[in-house]
């Protein structure tokens, strides 16, 4: 095989061979002596003359006597120019390239990292290869400074939140713009039920060459009105000139929850609720609750609620002790297999891959499957035209479990009583009234929820080389996303019960057409370097949906709507938006020392009012490479030092479509059509404006053994796209206006060091970021309170976005067991006065859901063929609202099984405890909007660990292999936290938005995953 490929490659080069006077041969190796496959060996003096090394790093090149110098190059290594001596053997050792010479992808181009004046975090594809997670965001956690990524919960295939340098918007999107190979990714979630999906799960992370995260205004301004939340550029792998490599990877493993909570067993449950009932009777001077609680025990114990032969309730002498939490989980399993081929010639280069990821989640009936393929081609048509095509197709199937607030979500099983058996004698699952609430396990047997996504991202380009350094490039891209959602709820399920079965079929499609053309010009006037780009881009996105819901099925075995007797809903909808943009960037450098970048974009969008259709987003940045100065050149300490500053404006257009129009929407009644006002017009509606200042320096110390970056930034966002609460008496509740301001200020530090080289290698990469977020204006208002008894995130001027605002819990009255809150009367200075009347307590700011400090630490060790790498990731400074604990930790307010810590509730005068007296049927401290249900959300987590072994090449070569690697990986193996709930990485999926975050509501903990893998290259 390799012989054949080598011959083919040589044939392509064949035409360059001239009848040579001599033959040079040799071997190209890396510093450890391993041969480099596919390195370029080029004759400097004769154009087109060259060859590439074979699998062992050997090359043979016939040259004429004119050739005096060979150029040896290999991607990622420092190139060498070697003069040919009299010897016909020339062995070359290439050393790995300096990190600062790295090339980074920027908007509409690439740039040498050492010449960057903006702030871009790059994560190379290697760092996230083979990560056993469904989407790349999870693999990026802890790897880029100032980039906060959080999964809503432990459900596989669910959405997550990504925040770059804090949140700047209250009502518009805070997600960054994702751009895949130049195409802005469609992120609309089209499923009709359940939590939002993650568009990035449609991308195979093993296809990714690099991820660049544009953080400051200089880097982002070229993306204009959509760059304020940062831009994530995802670049997929390209073909490489050289010998084809085939890489096969197989990985399998299992997962389990990171944590479980402790709930009462049946003895504790019975004792506790009898006690709670007795307390309520004492309050009322009655015996109602004593009888009531015994009746409930009979009911919840099912057949054990019957009398046995001795006339005793069976549940008394044959107690059941069900651990419902365990019923929510199973051992998750995953299988990942992928194969890729990469290679090409100077005329045609290719990268092709196919992959399968099949994950059975650790939650019952939660699954994820992705089958993906990719073909990236780059072709040189002639000396002045290049064309290429990136094509990918993925099918993602998600077996979604219900959102966190549904009785049928697996974790809500914990509410059921431990005295309730799971199944009856015939093996049927119990349901209400035997179970306290709907038994969600019924959904696992009698319901199906399957979402099938198809996504194809295709981008073709043509590049004309107009003259030396001047290029015209045109691209046409298409992100086509199809969703097919089928659900069936059988006659036993909560949804299907009243209808003899309920089913839905939902089809959605997003067509995102993107086209752009731009000119780029690169030149070097001796000491002045110029790199200019200017172009035009148009994007049009159409979103279609068609939904049918039907009910009355003859049997639970017939699940398609064809069998249903009644169609309940049949609807379709369509929406669209467009952007037309002009962009430009100019990079100047003088003596590689003084750097200047000007960039900007004019964006027009259908999303904005007619008075404000186009906006201009400019940025300027400067850099000064001190290490190029004579006085620094000989520095023993600094091998590289650059200071940089950037300032500019970006925008946020992340709102729904048509929010600037005054509208009437459908309001049908009694099967008659109707119309009703739905929106007040705002022709002045424009984008959010973020001006950002970034000051930073990049440094390399001790020949770049240690390098890093330090940045300070101030991000001021004004003209917020705020859904301003308007007086409800107007008939409307909100109007989207450009009002309000948010500031994010922070510091970021990145440190990379090569601690040990040689046989035993050790390198460390560390990043930490501090961000302070503050809402500085809300127009005329001081506070926006979503208004809920269950959640307490609000927006308040002078506070971080989404702070917890509620009553301050003051513990328990030691004399009577009443829950107490501080009155916190703003008029009086009485910090200590308490009340047992919840509605008399004034609400105050209780905590912040957003971490102020985030960071990650990766260590990589290598010794001979062994390697070990692990990443710790952590957040600090945030609190989590355990909203679900107002049911499961409410000192027996109702029959939800209680967490074991509720056993410490107040019992006798003088008891000092934080858990109020148990009172069945009463609210004694169960109000969710209270600091009683806040817990410190800081954590440090062993996010990933990889231990692998590469068999020596000498051993595997005989088997025709280039690489053979065995590895074991772990995700979330260790978590250090004071958080009392399941898992501190949480923002419940049914409610999470910009304001409501850091809320735990029966949210599944993250999975702890261990996988074993095999990697073969040939």
């Amino acid at each position, binding site marked *: 095989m390799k012989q054949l490929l080598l011959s083919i490659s040589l044939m392509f080069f064949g035409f360059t061979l001239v009848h040579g006077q001599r033959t040079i041969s040799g071997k190209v190796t890396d510093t450890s002596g391993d041969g480099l496959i596919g390195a370029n060996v080029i004759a400097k003096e004769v154009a087109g003359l060259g060859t590439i090394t074979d699998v062992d790093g050997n090359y043979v090149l016939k040259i004429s006597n004119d050739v005096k110098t060979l150029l040896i190059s290999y991607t990622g290594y420092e190139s060498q120019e070697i003069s040919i001596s009299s010897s016909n053997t020339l062995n070359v050792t290439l050393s790995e390239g300096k990190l600062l010479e790295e090339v980074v992808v920027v908007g509409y181009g690439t740039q040498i990292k050492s010449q960057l004046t903006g702030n871009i975090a790059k994560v190379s594809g290697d760092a996230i290869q083979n990560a056993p997670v469904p989407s790349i965001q999870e693999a990026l956690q802890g790897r880029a400074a100032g980039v906060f990524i959080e999964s809503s919960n432990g459900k596989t295939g669910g959405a997550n939140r990504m925040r770059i340098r804090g949140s700047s918007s209250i009502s518009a999107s805070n997600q960054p713009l994702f751009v895949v190979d130049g195409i802005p990714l469609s992120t609309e979630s089209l499923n009709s039920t359940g939590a939002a999906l993650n568009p990035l799960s449609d991308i195979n992370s093993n296809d990714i060459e690099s991820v660049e995260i544009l953080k400051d205004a200089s880097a982002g301004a070229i993306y204009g009105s959509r760059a304020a939340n940062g831009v994530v550029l995802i670049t997929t792998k390209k073909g490489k000139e050289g010998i084809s490599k085939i890489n096969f990877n197989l990985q399998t493993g299992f997962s389990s929850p990171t944590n479980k909570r402790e709930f009462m067993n049946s003895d504790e449950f019975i004792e506790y609720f009898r006690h709670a009932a007795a307390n309520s009777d004492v309050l009322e001077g009655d015996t109602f609750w004593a009888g009531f609680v015994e009746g409930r025990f009979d009911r919840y114990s099912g057949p054990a609620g019957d009398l046995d032969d001795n006339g005793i309730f069976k549940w008394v002498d044959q107690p059941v002790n069900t651990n419902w939490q365990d019923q929510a989980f199973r051992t998750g399993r995953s299988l990942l297999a992928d194969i890729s081929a990469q290679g090409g010639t100077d005329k045609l280069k290719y990268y092709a891959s196919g992959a399968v990821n099949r994950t059975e989640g650790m939650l019952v009936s939660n699954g994820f499957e992705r089958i993906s393929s990719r073909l990236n081609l780059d072709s040189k048509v002639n000396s002045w035209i290049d064309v290429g095509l990136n094509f990918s197709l993925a099918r993602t199937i998600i077996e979604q479990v219900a959102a966190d607030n549904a*009785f049928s979500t697996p974790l809500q099983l914990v509410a059921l009583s431990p005295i309730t058996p799971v199944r009856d004698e015939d093996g049927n699952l119990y349901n*209400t*009234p035997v179970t306290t*609430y*709907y038994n969600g396990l019924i959904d696992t047997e009698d319901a199906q929820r399957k979402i099938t996504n198809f996504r194809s991202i295709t981008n073709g380009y043509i590049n*004309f080389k107009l003259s030396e350094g001047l290029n*015209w490039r045109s691209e046409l891209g298409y992100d086509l996303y199809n969703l097919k959602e089928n659900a069936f709820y059988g006659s036993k399920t*909560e949804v299907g*019960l*009243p209808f003899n079965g309920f089913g839905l079929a939902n089809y959605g499609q997003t067509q995102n057409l993107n*086209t752009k*053309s731009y000119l780029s010009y690169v030149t070097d006037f001796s000491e002045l370097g110029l790199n200019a780009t200017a172009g035009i881009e*148009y994007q049009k996105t159409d979103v279609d949906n068609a939904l049918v819901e039907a009910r009355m099925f003859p049997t639970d075995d017939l699940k398609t709507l064809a069998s249903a007797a009644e169609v*309940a*809903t049949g609807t379709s*909808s369509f929406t*669209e938006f*467009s952007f*037309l943009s002009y962009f430009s960037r100019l990079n100047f450098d003088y003596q590689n020392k003084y750097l200047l970048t000007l960039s900007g974009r004019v964006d*027009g969008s*259908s999303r904005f009012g007619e008075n404000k*259709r186009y906006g201009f987003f400019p940025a300027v940045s400067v850099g000064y490479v001190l290490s190029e100065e004579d006085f620094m050149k000989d520095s023993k300490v600094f091998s590289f030092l650059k200071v940089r500053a950037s300032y500019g404006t970006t925008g946020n257009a992340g709102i729904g479509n*048509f929010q600037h129009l*005054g*509208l*009437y929407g*459908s*309001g049908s*009644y*009694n099967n008659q059509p*109707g*119309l*009703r*006002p739905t929106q007040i*017009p705002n022709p002045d509606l424009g984008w959010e404006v973020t001006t950002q200042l970034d000051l930073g320096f990049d440094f390399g110390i001790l020949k770049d053994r240690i390098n890093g970056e330090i940045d300070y930034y101030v991000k001021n966002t004004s003209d917020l796209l705020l859904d*301003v*609460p308007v*007086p*409800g*008496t*107007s*008939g*409307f*509740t909100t*109007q989207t206006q450009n009002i309000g301001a948010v500031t994010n200020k922070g510091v970021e530090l990145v440190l990379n060091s090569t601690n040990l080289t040689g046989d035993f290698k050790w390198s460390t990469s560390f990043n930490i970021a501090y961000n302070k977020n503050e809402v500085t204006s809300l127009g*005329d208002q001081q*506070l*926006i*309170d979503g*208004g*809920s*008894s*269950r959640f307490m995130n609000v927006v308040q001027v002078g506070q971080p976005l989404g702070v917890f605002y509620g009553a301050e819990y003051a513990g328990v009255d030691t004399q009577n067991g009443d829950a107490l809150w501080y009155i916190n009367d703003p008029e009086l200075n009485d910090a200590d006065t308490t009340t047992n009347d919840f*509605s008399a307590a004034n609400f105050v700011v209780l905590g912040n859901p957003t971490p102020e400090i985030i960071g990650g630490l990766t260590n990589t060790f290598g010794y001979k063929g062994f390697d070990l790498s692990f990443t710790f990731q952590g957040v600090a400074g945030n609190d989590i609202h355990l909203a679900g604990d107002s049911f499961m930790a409410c000192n027996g307010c*109702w029959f939800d099984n209680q967490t074991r810590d509720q056993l410490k509730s107040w019992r006798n005068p003088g008891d000092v405890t934080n858990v109020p007296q148990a009172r069945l*049927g009463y*609210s004694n401290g169960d*109000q*969710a*909007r209270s600091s009683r249900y806040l817990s410190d959300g800081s954590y440090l987590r062993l996010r990933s660990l990889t231990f692998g072994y590469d068999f020596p090449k000498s051993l595997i070569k005989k088997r025709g292999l280039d690489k053979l690697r065995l590895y074991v990986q772990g995700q979330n193996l260790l978590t250090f936290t004071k958080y009392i709930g399941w898992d501190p990485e949480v923002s419940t999926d049914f409610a999470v938005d910009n304001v409501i975050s850091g809320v735990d509501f029966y949210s599944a903990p993250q999975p702890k995953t261990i996988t074993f893998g095999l990697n073969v290259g040939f």
Partner: protein
Amino acid sequence: MKNKILIYLFSFSTIGLFHSCADNLGLEPAQSISENIVLDTDRNVKNVLNGAYSVLQRGAIYGGEIIRNGELLAGDGEILFVGTFGGPRQIFNKQMIAENEDVRRQWTDSYNAINVVNNVLTAIPVVNEDDRDRVEGEALFIRGMVYFDLVRYYAKTYESGQSNTQPGVPLVLTPTRGIDASNSLSRNSVEEVYTQVLADLTRAVSLLPATNGISATSGAANALLARVYLQKGDFAKARDAANTVIESGEYILKNDYASVFNADVAGSEDIFAIEFTSQDVAASTTEFWSIPQFGGRDGDIEILPGHLALYDADDERLALFFEGAAAIRSGKWNNQFGVVNLFRLAEMYLIRAETNLRLGTSIGATPLSDYNTIHTRAGLAAKNNISLVDIISEKRLELAHEGHKIHEHKRLKLDVGDLPYNDPKLIFPIPARELESNPNLTQNDGY
């Protein structure tokens, strides 16, 4: 040369392509139409009127929660709220906070309905002449009904014979076209709100036809007038309005009490009802009062023995209760795609009986006769003489769990549990979001 031609061709076509894109920034939505064209035609104005009914149908108001809240607030000893939603739980426990989501939605949806009908009322000249009175009358009826319930829930109760200067709710009588400081209204007095309600309803009576499909009729406006006057303690006018409804002959009591409820469409006894079809979101009456088998949540409201003990054993109304999800349930709300009864003829008989008895008159019929009409329909033996208490008790049973309880307690100055009828805890708070967005609003006592 060839190269140049190719490049010129390519760049011209590209520039042409982008140029045409610039027209694509003025997109219009597919599911909505602009407000400036909607009120221009007869057909559209009628569409907007129907849109007002669709707002009334929302769960937070006449789709069911207005009924539920009237019972939860005065449910002590008779019903038990065991659901997991915090909003109704706070209402039931009389521990409401101004952030309560149900209290908020009832307010915002009520005013939403008012804005819709205010739009209709400005466009009456566009309506075909033959339909103008009907369209205007329906809009006025809806506005009167919504304001009456707003003032009953969010303000101190109307004290008969006194000057009712206590803060009511803001009166908005014109459609909203934009948002500015003029939208930050302060509260009108309770008296002013009642005056507006009576003005709207009185005019509605004169405009509306006697029959009008399932939409509002003159009977509906009169039935509401009877209720408003009764709440005000204006017994003569309440009596006359109720009498007009009964004497109109448009409505007939059903023989079978149970058949009044859970019907798919309004029956002969219904004066005005909200109707649900299978195309609608289910009624929230069912959601809270019923059990999963019928589409209810989890059986959120249980009926306690304290309520059941009020009935005579032979009372057919007692038989309507049923056991489901291991507790006793009201049998009135088991059809989630059926009728939510808002005004029934039975209420008119009982209003006429009470007011005639209070006034010592026999307009239409004697109090005893009206009482027995209702009493015997429930399968009970006719009585020979009755007192005011009998009529009030009969009304409590006849209209049980139809949303009247808290308003009856307030009207009759009866305690609710330990709380006197005028306790601030029995009045909804003004929603926190309203106070935050409107500096001119004042909060109710106790919040």
